[in-house]
């Protein structure tokens, strides 16, 4: 923890201060007080404000907006300023035995419209840019801005603390500030923001999410349904198949039996009959073919036997005879021609010899030629033989065909004969029909169930695809959704925990505060027996006073001054809690108190509360014996005087009692 001591503050061109006014704030040991007297309006409050502003800038105003800060500065900024508005604060910061001499300064340029602030930090005389940039963090580590309200306060604050209605809340807030509970609160606020964002997000998405989730649930339900149906159908199909096969076997068995008992013949009756008819026709045709073969006039001649040979011989012989005759006739003619021609040419003797020779030669033909011809002119039998043989062959083949056809016919006639009469078969046919129908029905059932099963399986496939898609979509699109709801829950839990933590922290502090406040208050109070203790309620932080008799004392029983003392006691307790040391600046604290109480305050509070205490007071507050009392602990005293002429204030030194 660091100890901060103000060395001095310089203010120019702000509020009533025009030219630079500097207050040396250094204190000696045992004399922590710097007294600054001023009439109202001289610049007391401005001094206090400047002190806060130079340290904390805009944060000095608490949670105010930048525009308010700007307004504040602009309001303070003097119009008749030559040069800039500026505050500088020299301070010493001691940490672990080490001392840093820093000067923090802020100055403002208020040109036309633009507002700019320059913050500089000097260390040991030269600009330290690092601390300058990190000034807020640096200072916050020493004394957070929320706590500065306790160290730099005014009479109004005391009034408020003295008010029993506002006291608990202020006490609580101050304790919270001391305990750094502000951090918890802002954390809670952040969490709320996160939750809200998540809730909004969730709300937006919830519609989609809900419908997607419902779709998914519906698909799952459908899938279950289909799976159930498939199970049922699978076993049904198996069963139907067995039934079908049984019906099929039954029919087949019966049908085979029936066939054996002539059913085949009966069924084929028409076929058989028509085959028989055809065979009959074929026989008729074959017979006709045979007849045709027989009708050939030359066909019969094949059966003539040896007569044919004789005929051929005679025919040839007669052909020879005819040829011979013809030849003879030709020879004769030629002989005559030749002889005629030779007659005059040859001697008669030679002629006669020739004539005889020719005649003799002709004899050879005459004999043959002389044969009597008995046969009529007919075709050469040798040549006819071909035809006859052909005809015979045709006849034979026709006969063979006929035999074949007749044989076939016989077979078929027997078959026809074997066809049972319709009456014999009525029962058998009826049974067959019944069994055939049963088989058809079983087959149809089986087929239908199979089809249903296939349909369901296709459905399942289809559903599976859709389900996968829906689930993928769910996890993809609504991953955020899950995170959001987790965030919301986590945030809520954390906030609950933080709240409990805060309450417990505050409750734990309450006991300590009660003790401290009691001590301080009793020390400040004149009426020692009036108050035995001050109790801070751990839950509500309501402050109650326990009277000397042990009963609760209503706050109204205290005078206004006593209530102020109570307020100071509270402040004192709170400041003392902060083990690190920081200057305390009080603005007109003594107004309500009477003299005795003022003196008590000085002794018990101002002298002891910190190593450096600035008291800003009006001229009447610190007067006489009060002044004397204060002087014992005062290192320096100043007077701020406002001049109507210059319309500005100046700071002048008041002679210290030591000096005086």
């Amino acid at each position, binding site marked *: 923890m660091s100890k901060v001591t103000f060395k001095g503050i310089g203010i120019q061109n702000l509020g009533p201060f025009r030219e630079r006014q500097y207050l040396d704030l250094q204190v000696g040991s045992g004399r922590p007080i710097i007294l600054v007297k001023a009439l109202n309006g001289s610049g007391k409050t401005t001094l206090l404000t400047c002190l806060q502003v130079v340290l904390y800038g805009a944060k000095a105003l608490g949670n105010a907006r930048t525009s308010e800060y700007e307004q504040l500065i602009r309001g303070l900024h003097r119009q008749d300023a030559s040069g800039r508005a500026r505050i500088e604060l020299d301070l010493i910061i001691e940490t672990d035995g080490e001392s840093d001499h820093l000067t923090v300064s802020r100055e403002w340029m208020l040109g036309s419209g633009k507002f700019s602030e320059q913050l500089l930090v000097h260390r040991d005389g030269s600009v330290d840019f690092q601390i300058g940039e990190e000034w807020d963090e640096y200072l916050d580590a020493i004394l957070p801005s929320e706590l500065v309200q306790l160290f730099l306060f005014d009479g109004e604050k005391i009034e408020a603390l003295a008010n029993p209605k506002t006291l608990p809340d202020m006490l609580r807030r101050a304790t919270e500030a001391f305990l750094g509970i502000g951090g918890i609160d802002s954390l809670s606020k952040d969490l709320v923001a996160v939750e809200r964002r998540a809730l909004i997000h969730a709300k937006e998405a919830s519609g989609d999410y809900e419908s997607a989730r419902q779709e998914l649930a519906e698909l799952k339900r459908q899938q279950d349904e289909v799976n159930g149906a498939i199970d049922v159908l699978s076993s049904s199909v198996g069963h139907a198949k067995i039934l079908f096969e049984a019906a099929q076997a039954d029919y087949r068995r019966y049908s085979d039996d029936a066939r054996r008992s002539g059913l085949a013949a009966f069924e084929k009756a028409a076929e058989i009959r028509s085959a028989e008819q055809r065979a009959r026709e074929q026989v008729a045709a074959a*017979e006709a073919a*045979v*007849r045709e073969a*027989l*009708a050939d*006039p*030359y*066909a*019969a*001649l*094949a*059966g*003539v*036997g*040896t*007569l*044919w040979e*004789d*005929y051929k011989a*005679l*025919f040839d012989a007669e052909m020879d005879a005819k040829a011979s005759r013809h030849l003879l006739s030709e020879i004769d003619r030629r002989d005559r021609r030749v002889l005629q021609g030779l007659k005059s040419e040859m001697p008669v003797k030679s002629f006669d010899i020739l004539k005889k020779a020719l005649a003799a030669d002709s004899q050879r033909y005459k004999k043959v030629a002389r044969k009597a011809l*008995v*046969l*009529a*002119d*007919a*075709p050469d*039998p040798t040549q*006819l033989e071909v035809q006859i043989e052909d005809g015979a062959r045709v006849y034979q083949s026709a*006969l063979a065909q*006929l*035999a074949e056809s007749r044989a076939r016919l016989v077979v078929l006639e027997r078959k026809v004969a074997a066809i049972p009469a319709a009456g014999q078969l009525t029962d058998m046919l009826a049974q067959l029909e019944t069994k055939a129908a049963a088989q058809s029905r079983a087959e149809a059932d089986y087929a239908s169930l199979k089809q249903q099963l296939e349909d369901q399986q296709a459905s399942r496939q289809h559903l599976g695809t859709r389900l996968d898609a829906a689930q993928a979509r769910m996890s993809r699109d609504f991953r955020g959704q899950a995170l959001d709801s987790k965030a919301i829950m986590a945030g809520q839990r954390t906030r609950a925990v933080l709240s409990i933590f805060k309450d417990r922290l505050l409750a734990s502090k309450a006991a300590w505060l009660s003790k401290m406040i009691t001590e301080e208050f009793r020390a400040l109070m004149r009426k020692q027996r009036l108050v035995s203790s001050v109790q801070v309620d751990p839950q509500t932080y309501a402050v109650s006073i326990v009277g000397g008799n042990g009963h609760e004392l209503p706050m109204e029983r205290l005078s206004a001054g006593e209530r102020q003392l109570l307020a100071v006691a509270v402040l004192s307790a709170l400041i003392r809690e902060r083990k690190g040391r920081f200057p305390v600046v009080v603005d007109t604290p003594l107004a309500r108190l009477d003299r005795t109480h003022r003196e008590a305050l000085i002794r018990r509070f101002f002298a002891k509360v910190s190593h450096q205490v600035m008291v800003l007071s009006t001229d009447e507050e610190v007067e006489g014996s009060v002044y004397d009392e204060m002087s014992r602990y005062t290192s320096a005293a100043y007077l701020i005087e406002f001049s109507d002429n210059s319309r500005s204030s100046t700071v002048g030194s008041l002679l210290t009692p030591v000096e005086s």
Partner: protein
Amino acid sequence: MNNLIERVRLSSAARQQLITLKRRTGIEHYNVICRHALCASLANKSPVPREKMQFSNGLEIDWRTFAGEAEATYLNLLIMRTLADEGAASAEAVRNTLTAHLHRGLSYLVSRQDSLIA
């Protein structure tokens, strides 16, 4: 020789046989049956006894119808048979030969149960 035979006459018995044969074989035309009958007889070398025949209630078949295309050949066969049997082939002898053999032939066919069409 062309007009040697004009027609051939059948006895009533022969006519009956012809009718039977027609029925039996289903052959439509008499002349077909007669041709086969004639040839069947001619195949047998043994001479046919010349009987006196009764032609009343008989049948006449025109020679050309009977012989068809093979008229000349049939005639020659008859001539030859006549020469063989009788030694001379006068017109009448030939005619008688035809008649005789035809009658005999028809008897043959009738007696053969499986004649012609088996």
